[in-house]
């Protein structure tokens, strides 16, 4: 069964450093998403991406964040200058449909980001 994969599973970084979190969505999916979950809190939407551009972003997704689909398979989230409060689980998700209806989003296993 196809699945969303994410690397690395755990990333430790120093405050102020740049990190890139990587995701490989399910191959025939068209919509891609990043969510995060701070420990003990709810899963929060960050950004959605379709046709090589951002479709929607939350207020969390400020200028320190960017997303990219550098090739036909990878989808990345970059945090330019990490802060302590960026420590969280980051989940990538993808979904199949765009027009005319809903479809469920499939999530990857997550990357745990720890900012020291």
């Amino acid at each position, binding site marked *: 069964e196809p699945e969303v994969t994410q690397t690395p599973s755990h990333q430790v970084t120093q405050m102020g450093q740049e990190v890139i979190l990587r995701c490989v969505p399910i191959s025939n999916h068209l919509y891609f998403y990043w969510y995060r979950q701070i420990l003990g809190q709810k899963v929060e939407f960050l950004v*959605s991406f379709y046709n090589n551009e951002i*479709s929607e972003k939350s207020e969390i997704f400020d200028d320190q964040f960017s997303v990219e689909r550098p090739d036909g398979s990878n989808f990345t989230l970059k945090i330019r200058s990490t802060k302590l409060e960026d420590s969280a689980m980051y989940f990538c998700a993808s979904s199949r449909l765009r027009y005319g209806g809903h479809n469920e989003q499939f999530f990857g296993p997550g990357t745990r980001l720890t900012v020291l």
Partner: protein
Amino acid sequence: DQQVKQNSPSLSVQEGRISILNCDYTNSMFDYFLWYKKYPAEGPTFLISISSIKDKNEDGRFTVFLNKSAKHLSLHIVPSQPGDSAVYFCAATRMNYGGSQGNLIFGKGTKLSVKP
């Protein structure tokens, strides 16, 4: 502003009995609702969904009920099994104006424990 609320942080049920997980929402624009299951150190796994034009959707042991007038949905698991022990998240979304996929708004989750 909690648009999706799961007021029970935990629920304990005996194996073989029914588990009922509840979710309330405040935004009447939501038109699609999903339940995800999450094990520790894994991403959310899609379970079942329901469109706002329906009031019930069933898939094996899992049934989701939607009461639009009360802005309430529930997930029923019958019969409950120890392997169902996990955190269950309710999520809601709405069709964006252009017909694109909306982002998911999650509740805080309910931890279900099914005891043998």
